[in-house]
């Protein structure tokens, strides 16, 4: 096992392995999405307090989970890259960032779509929405910083520092916004606090979250393959792949 990890942590052997994994994860993502959507629309009952509008949570909540999970995973990969100086982990971090930003954006937009019929406004300055917005800023900052640095080694390391500093800050920001919010007015309804939440609702949310996981893995893997090709373009294994293709 240890030998395997060692072997696959080199881009040359990880590239073809990732290539085989990508379609599998796309397929799984499609299957889980179909099942999840079926449960969301045809199994889960109407919510007693929120009516049909609650069906937005089947994408909102998984997207919000993903936005946070991906940030944590990204910060861990980036940190590993900084400490252990492994090329692949830094590339994984950079491959995850755009997908994380996408889910953060989706969580914000769907939150607004849920807020309008429920709160009566598109936006509320509650702790979750605000932290989600700041998370989007952090993702954009990370991507801009790594894109602005030409030297890849510096880009990896500087990105890692930013990702980790941001990671420490997210909970601080969350709690400070929460505290600030309770002092001002206090958000009334929360998306998931409905007491009448049926088991099927939870099941739908979980299955959609699994679908989002599968999708993220597939996209991140195919993006990390591009990064590998780009960065190692003069190495023997990339040349070999290019020969085969043409």
């Amino acid at each position: 096992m240890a030998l395997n990890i060692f072997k696959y942590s080199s881009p040359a052997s990880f590239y073809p392995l990732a290539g085989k994994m990508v379609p599998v994860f796309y397929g799984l993502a499609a299957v889980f999405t179909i099942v999840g959507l079926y449960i969301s629309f045809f199994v889960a009952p109407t919510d007693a307090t929120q009516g049909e509008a609650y069906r937005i949570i089947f994408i909102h909540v998984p997207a919000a989970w993903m936005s946070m999970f991906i940030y944590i995973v990204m910060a861990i990969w980036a940190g590993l890259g900084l400490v252990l100086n492994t090329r692949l982990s830094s590339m994984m971090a950079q491959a995850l960032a755009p997908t994380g930003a996408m889910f953060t954006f989706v969580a914000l937009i769907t939150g607004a779509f849920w807020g309008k019929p429920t709160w009566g406004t598109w936006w509320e300055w509650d702790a979750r929405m605000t932290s989600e917005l700041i998370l989007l800023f952090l993702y954009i900052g990370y991507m801009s910083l790594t894109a602005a640095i030409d030297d890849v080694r510096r880009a990896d390391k500087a990105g890692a520092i930013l990702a980790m500093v941001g990671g420490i800050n997210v909970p601080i920001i969350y709690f400070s916004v929460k505290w600030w919010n309770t002092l001002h007015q206090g958000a009334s309804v929360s998306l998931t606090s409905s007491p009448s939440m049926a088991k099927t609702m939870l099941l739908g949310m979980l299955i959609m979250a699994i679908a989002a996981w599968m999708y993220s893995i597939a996209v991140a893997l195919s993006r990390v393959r591009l990064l590998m090709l780009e960065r190692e373009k003069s190495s023997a294994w990339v040349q070999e792949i290019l020969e085969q293709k043409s």
Partner: protein
Amino acid sequence: MNWGSWSNFIDMGGRGFYVWGSYFITLICIVFELGLLARQKRALWQRLTQLMKLNKQG
């Protein structure tokens, strides 16, 4: 959950715009991300094969 008719399903108890709007935007986001990725992939392959040809000539 039995919706009865298509129009009921589309209407979502009067919240159709919000429910379908958020699902639609999510779809757009995913399509956008995948499209961007495919474009990056094409551009990179093109660049790399060109580079290889140049290297072979020179």
